C-alpha cells in the first residue's frame, strides 16, 4: 500500500494546500480535530448522494418508497452487513489486507445455532455461545497462520472461507434449517422505537469501534501498526499480538453477527453466506470516502451499509429483480475502491 519509489515526497503543493485549507477553515477550527481532519466537504459527498437518491426514489415511487415501511426495511435489515463490515475493519485497520473468510465464518456461526438447536435439540443459548466460540476459534486459526506462521492473508482466508462454507453445508445437510424458538428471536427483533434491537447493537458496535480508534491508546496502536509495523515495534507496541487479536476479534464479531442473523430469521441457509462477501467489501471501501476520507473508518462504513441498502431497495421497487443487488453492489465496489485509491493518493 505504500509507495516507496520516492523518498522525498512531492511536497510544497500539499503543504500549501493544507495551509490554505486550514486558513479557510479558520472559523471551523473549534471543531474537534477528528472531525476536521479530513478534506473539506468531500467527506459529506456520499451522504449528499444518499439524500439525493432517497429524494429521487421518493419522487419516482411516491406510493411504495416514500413510506415508513421502507424506512423500517432499510434500517431493520442490515445488521448482518454491519457486523461483517466491522469484522473486516478489524483486520484492515491493522494492515492485514482482507479477511476473505469472514462471510463464511459468519455463516458457520448462524448454521451452528440453527443445527445444534433444531436438529440436535440443544439449549439455544448454549448453542449460541458455542457458535460464537467456534467463529472466534476460526479467527484464532487465521491469526495463527497469517501472523505467526506468515502465510499469505488472502490465500489462507480464501481457503478457510470455502472450507467453512463446506462444513456448514454438511452440518445443515444442504438445506435451510429453521425453527428457532420465538423467545430467542427477541435478541435481534425486539422493537425499540420501531426498529429492531439488532440495529442498535450494530450502531453501538460501530460507535464503540470508532471510540476505540479515535480516543484510546489501543486504537492508535492499531492504526499505527496498520500504517507502519516497524515504527510501532520500535515504540514498544506488541505488534504481533495486535495483529493476531485483530483476526480473533474479526472472527468473534462475525460469530455474534451470525447468531443475531439466525435469531432474526429463525434459522439459516448456509448457501447464502457467500452472498454477503461482496456487499461487505463494497460497504467497507465506500466507507473510506465518508467522514474521514482516505481512511478506513467505522462510522463511514456504517453509513455506507445503509447507503447501499437504500440503493438496492429503490431499484428493486422500481422493478429490478435479483440481478439488481449484484449490479449495484458490484458497481459500487469498483467505484468505491477507485475513490478510496484516489483519496489515499491525494492524502500522500
Amino acid at each position: 500500500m505504500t509507495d516507496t519509489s520516492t523518498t522525498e515526497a512531492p511536497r510544497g503543493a500539499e503543504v500549501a494546500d493544507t495551509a490554505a485549507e486550514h486558513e479557510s477553515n479558520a472559523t471551523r477550527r473549534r471543531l474537534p480535530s477528528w472531525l476536521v481532519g479530513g478534506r473539506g466537504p468531500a467527506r459529506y459527498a456520499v451522504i449528499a448522494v444518499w439524500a439525493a437518491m432517497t429524494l429521487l426514489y421518493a419522487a419516482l415511487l411516491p406510493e411504495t418508497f416514500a413510506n415508513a415501511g421502507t424506512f423500517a426495511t432499510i434500517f431493520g435489515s442490515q445488521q448482518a452487513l454491519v457486523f461483517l463490515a466491522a469484522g473486516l475493519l478489524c483486520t484492515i485497520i491493522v494492515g492485514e489486507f482482507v479477511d476473505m473468510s469472514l462471510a463464511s465464518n459468519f455463516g458457520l456461526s448462524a448454521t451452528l445455532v440453527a443445527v445444534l438447536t433444531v436438529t440436535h435439540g440443544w439449549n439455544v443459548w448454549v448453542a449460541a455461545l458455542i457458535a460464537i466460540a467456534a467463529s472466534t476459534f476460526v479467527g484464532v486459526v487465521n491469526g495463527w497462520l497469517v501472523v505467526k506462521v506468515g502465510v499469505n492473508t488472502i490465500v489462507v482466508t480464501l481457503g478457510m472461507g470455502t472450507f467453512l462454507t463446506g462444513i456448514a453445508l454438511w452440518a445443515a445437510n444442504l438445506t435451510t434449517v429453521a425453527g428457532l424458538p420465538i423467545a430467542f428471536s427477541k435478541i435481534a427483533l425486539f422493537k425499540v422505537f420501531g426498529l429492531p434491537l439488532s440495529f442498535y447493537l450494530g450502531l453501538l458496535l460501530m460507535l464503540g469501534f470508532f471510540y476505540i480508534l479515535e480516543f484510546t491508546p489501543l486504537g492508535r496502536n492499531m492504526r499505527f501498526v496498520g500504517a507502519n509495523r516497524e515504527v510501532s515495534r520500535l515504540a514498544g507496541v506488541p505488534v504481533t499480538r495486535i495483529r493476531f487479536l485483530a483476526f480473533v476479534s474479526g472472527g468473534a464479531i462475525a460469530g455474534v453477527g451470525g447468531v443475531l442473523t439466525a435469531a432474526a430469521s429463525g434459522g439459516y441457509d448456509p448457501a447464502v453466506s457467500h452472498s454477503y462477501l461482496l456487499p461487505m467489501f463494497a460497504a467497507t471501501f465506500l466507507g473510506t470516502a465518508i467522514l474521514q476520507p482516505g481512511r478506513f473508518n467505522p462510522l463511514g462504513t456504517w453509513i455506507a451499509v445503509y447507503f447501499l441498502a437504500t440503493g438496492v431497495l429503490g431499484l428493486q421497487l422500481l422493478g429490478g429483480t435479483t440481478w439488481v443487488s449484484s449490479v449495484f453492489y458490484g458497481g459500487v465496489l469498483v467505484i468505491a475502491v477507485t475513490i478510496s485509491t484516489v483519496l489515499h493518493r491525494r492524502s500522500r
Partner: protein
Amino acid sequence: MTRHEGVRAATPAPPAPRLSVSALDKTFGSNRVLTDVTFDVAPGEIHALVGQNGSGKSTVAKILTGLYTPDPGAQVAIDGVPLQLPVTPQESRERGMAVVHQSLGLVDEFTVLENLRVGRLTGSRLTRRIDWAREREAAAAVFARVGRQVPLDVPVGTLLEEDRATVAIARALQDAQAGAGLIVFDESTRALSRRALEHFFGILDEIVATGTAVLMITHRLEEVVAAADRVTILRDGRSVVSGHEVRGMTEAELTSLILGRNLGDLDSRERLVPADDAPRVTVVGVAGLGVAEASFEVRQGEIVGLTGVGGSGYDDVPYLLAGVSPARAGTVSLPGRDLALAGLRPADAIAAGMALVPEGREHAGLAMTESVAENIAFAQTSRARRPLAPMPRRNELALVGEWIDRLGVVPNLPQAPVNTYSGGNQQKVFVAKWLATDPDLLLLHEPTQAVDVGARHTIVEAIHEMAASGMFVLVAGSDENELALLCDRVLVFEEGRIARELSGQVTPDDIVEAIYAGGSRGALRARRDTGAA
C-alpha cells in the same frame, strides 16, 4: 546528433549545451513550486543542482523524468534540440539522457546482466526468446567503456558497494554514444560509503573527460565542492545561482547561498571534558548481530560517536541496546538501573529511559499517513498502561505544541499528515517523537541523513542541547562530517570490536583516517584542468 541552427549562429563556437533548461515553471493548483528555473549543462562537465528540501530539486528531477508536466512556456533541450514536453523517457533515452534514481535504482535479486539490460532486452527474431549472447556482448561493451570489470551473472545484491555504483553508471551510460550523452543522478549517492564514493567519482571523472555530461542532484555539499565543475542553486523554486563556477567555493559559502542567510558556526560547540566522577552509563560486553564484544562508557552530558566501515558492527550497537535487535549478551547500566540485554524488549528499554532514533525515517521512523501530533505523541501513547482509557488530548496537544516550537517544525499544523511535510521537517518530527519521551540515554543512528543543511543545523543543536541538559547521547553514523560536528568522543569499530578511540578536537579527516586505519581521505575527484564550461 542534429545541431540546432538558429538565432545563435551570430556568435560562432560555443557548442550547444548537453542539457538546457529554461523558463521552467511548475504550479500545483494555486501553489507555484518552480519559477523560471534556468540552467545549462555543458558537455564534459559535472554540474551540481543543490538546494534545501522543498526548494524544488526533486520537482526538477521529476520533470526531467516525465513524471510531472511543466507549465507551458518551459523549454528543455538536449544538444540544442528542444524535447517534447512532458518529457517522455523513450525520447530522452534516444537522445542520450539517462536518469539514475535514489539508491542507484538496482534490483538486488537480479543479476548484473539483467539489471543492466532490463527495458532494452530484445527477443530473437523467430522465437522471441531473449538472445542472451547478444545481451552479454552489449553489456561487456558498456563495461569496457566504463573501464571496469564486473561479473555479469551474480546477483547485484552480492556485489561490493563500489561495483554496484559501477553497474548503475554503466546502465545509465549504455544508450549514449561515446563522447556524448548526459547522466542525471537524482540523489543517487547518498547510500554510498566514503570509499565507494571515491570510486564513483573516479569513474565519472573518466567519463566526463570524453565529453559526456553529468547532472548531480545532491544533498552532500562536499560532493559539490570537491567534485563538481559548476553549480546551480535552487531556493524557493528559483534558480538563484545558475551555472556558477565551483572552483574556489567553500562549503560555508555554498551553505549561505542555499539558505539565503548565514548559519551560525556549528563548529563552535565547546568540547566537553566531563569530570571523572560524573554519572555515567556503562555498557559491558554487548554482543549480537555484527558486534562481537564491546564495552564502553558514556558520561553525563557527553555525546559519543560510533563509527567504522560497513559491516564492522558499529551501527548495530544502538539497536542491541534498545532491545530492537536480539542481543546475545551484555548489560547496560543506567543511573540506578541495570538491564540485561539478552531478551530485552523495546518496551522495557523505553521504560528504562532509553530512546532509539533509528535510521530510515520512512521505514522505521514515522507513520507517514498519520498526523504530526499523533506521531510525536506515539512513543508515549504506544505504551499506555490502560489501553482502553481515553488519552488526555489536552496534555498531548501541549506536548506536541512544545516540540513543534522547540524544533521549529513548519508549517505548524499538528493535524496534517506527516507525508505532507518536507523531508527536513519530517526528520524534525521524527527526532521530536523520541526526545519527547525525555530519555536518559538517547541512541541515534544517522540522525541527519538526507536532510538539508537548515534542518541539520536545527537537529544538531537540539542534540547538543539535550546533552547539555544532562542526557547521555550515543550516535552511530557513517558521515564523518556529522560525527565531527556532534561528538565529544568517537569510538571506531573494526570487525565487531572497538578498535580505536578519538577524543578532544576531532576533525572529519581524523575520523576517516581512523576508520580506514591510516588510509587518508582522498580527494573525491582528481580535478583535471580541461577548462570545461
